[in-house]
């Protein structure tokens, strides 16, 4: 176990190094000059020159990478040239917002997707199965931003039940916090629920035909108990893996939904940073997301090893 851990940990730093090289390099391929984007409408040449010098944009590329990497190693992710605040502060400020949104979305996805998957598998080949599959397809096919706008028109404009956009933190008001997150979390959860439903369905179908389930049925156990207690527990393994992966993806991938609902999270931060060519922010956010993925992967690997000793090698 110790050698396994040491081997995995030794890979973390080189992986991060390559990720950092990749994001740094890819960003430079983008056309557009941060100094020009920042200099304002007037594009005063002396201002542009000053900004290029101030943010080392006039230095050669390897030099700029070294300057940035040196800062990162010292725990400094640089400063946003647009917002004029340290990138680390922005990450710390935005990550909990997106984290909460992602957690709600996964919760909604699980509470829609799993029951529908179970129902569909138990009633395999019947009208219930087809109806559930149709609903899942609908959820997968509907574009997030469009569903978002429709929900806003229904729940905010027509019914006046929920705020149309914006975000209120839990510290300010828990009820407002939940009200502002309800629609965006549903939009995100709805799309994931569809995938969850399909996975639960196929896993359940596999498990339901397994010998031990038949035995449980033959022993005269109640069908609901067999389905929920014996079959579902085993079928949930791939669903939980999927939920964990989707959670990771939502941290950096809720871009459109955050934009529509004006949620000041990671997605909106990175979109604005890309449009403004705020390199330090893009690099910082991507690096943090990469780190989160590496840690999640590592934890998953450790969990597998704990569960299955044959993997210890």
């Amino acid at each position: 176990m110790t050698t396994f851990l040491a081997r995995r940990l030794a890979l973390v730093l080189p992986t991060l190094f390559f990720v950092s090289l990749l994001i740094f390099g890819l960003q430079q391929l983008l056309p557009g000059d941060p100094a020009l984007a920042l200099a304002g409408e007037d594009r005063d040449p002396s201002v542009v020159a000053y900004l290029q010098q101030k943010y080392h944009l006039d230095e050669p590329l390897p030099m700029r990478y070294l300057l940035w990497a040196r800062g990162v190693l010292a725990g400094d992710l640089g400063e946003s040239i647009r917002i004029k605040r340290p990138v680390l502060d922005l990450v710390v400020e935005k990550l909990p917002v997106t984290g909460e949104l992602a957690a709600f979305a996964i919760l909604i996805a699980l509470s829609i997707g799993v029951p529908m998957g179970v129902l569909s598998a138990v009633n395999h080949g019947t009208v219930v199965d087809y109806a559930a599959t149709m609903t899942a397809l609908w959820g997968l096919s509907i574009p997030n931003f469009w569903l978002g706008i429709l929900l806003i028109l229904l729940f905010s404009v027509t019914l006046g039940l929920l705020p149309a956009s914006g975000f209120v933190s839990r510290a300010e008001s828990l009820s407002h916090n939940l009200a502002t997150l309800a629609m965006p979390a549903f939009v995100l959860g709805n799309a994931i629920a569809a995938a969850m439903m399909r996975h639960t369905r196929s896993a359940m179908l596999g498990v339901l035909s397994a010998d031990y389930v038949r035995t449980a049925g033959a022993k005269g156990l109640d069908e609901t108990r067999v389905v929920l207690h014996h079959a579902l527990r085993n079928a949930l393994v791939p669903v939980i893996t999927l939920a964990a992966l989707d959670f990771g993806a939502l941290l950096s991938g809720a871009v459109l939904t955050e934009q529509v609902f004006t949620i000041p999270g990671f997605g909106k931060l990175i979109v604005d940073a890309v449009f403004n060519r705020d390199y330090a922010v893009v690099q910082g956010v991507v690096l943090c997301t990469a780190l989160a993925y590496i840690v999640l992967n590592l934890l998953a690997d450790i969990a597998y090893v704990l569960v299955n000793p044959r993997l210890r090698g």
Partner: protein
Amino acid sequence: MKLRRGVRFHDGEAFAAAAVKFSIERHLNLPGSTRKAEISAVTGVEIIDDYTVKLVLSAPSASLLAQLTDRAGMIVSPKAAQVEGENFAAHPVCAGPFKFVERVAQDRIVLERFSDYWNRDSIKFDRISYLPIPDSTVRLANVQSGGLDLIERVAATDVEGVRKDPGLKLTAITGLGYSAIVINIANGERSKTPLAQDVRVRQALQLSIDRAALNQVVFNGEFQPGNQWEPPGNPYYVKELPIPPRDVSQARQLLAEAKQPNPTVELMIPNTPELLQAGQVIQAMAQEAGFRVTIKATESASLIQLATKGEYQARLGGWSGRTDPDGNIYNFVACNAPLNDLHYCNPEVDRELDAARTVEDPAERLAHYRRVAQQILQDLPLIYLWHNKWLWAATPKLAGFTPYPDGLIRPQGMRLE
């Protein structure tokens, strides 16, 4: 220049001549100052007494007063500016009706009523929150649902709905800016096109466009068609040179004379839905005269860089506008001016533009601008198309809101009934 007495900054410091001198010198000397070019005529600020300052200029400047009504004239608290240094923008301290409370990036800016504001009776709100909401549909939904009291930049296509909605109040005013086809006249290789090299081709392109129809199709007729850098109705709009009507047969004839019956034009357009639609309308109209227009949709930061480098044949460009006409024309067409990425250069035009900068009499200035307009509308380095309107939607409870062409929301006199 006489200063108002009894004014205080948000940090309690008194507003007096020393603060004006400090602020203007700060604009002039701060490294990377974006205000410097606007007031570059100022060479010194002298304090005559506590409430009188004298601005020393290198040459007469007709636009200076207008510049001072804009950002360049906003006076900051010297004490706070010195304490905060480079970080002052994150904690601004001025003398206006509201003081800064907080800014959460991508979320909100919150201001709070300043009790010592000199004109405090005109202020009826305790707090103002500005929320940046990028999507126009979502902005509108917010004011419809009562989440917001006032929104700006209503999409032109939503205006009809807002007018019909008894729960909303629409306010509109023509802005100071313009949108135009900017033609790369002489900036690098990409300017070697029939459009750049033969004025008849540019005139034909202009004649192929029906500005009123363009406005009708893309903006539901809500914006104002135009053919100069100032909108029709502005005192500096040259009335003798009205919007030319569409004339496809004359356009074809001009192209035939130029021996370019089917010139190709690559039109670079910022990739926003409205502007792309405008581009498609232009493409269709120009095609009837024989032009082959291709549209190159480009994201804005890339577009600015490509424009600066001259990497375009023609582009759909816009300018937010300034109160003084100088700010809407000089930097775009004067030889070697900073925003003249088309590299148009005509000493005759420069002479008139420079002269217009130094005379104060409006009639005399207009005479200079008339001669500029005659030349520019002849040479057509820019084909001016329309002027955006500022469109606000508010709850009917909001009273006393006065629109200004610069688009700024001034809270004085506004109240919720």
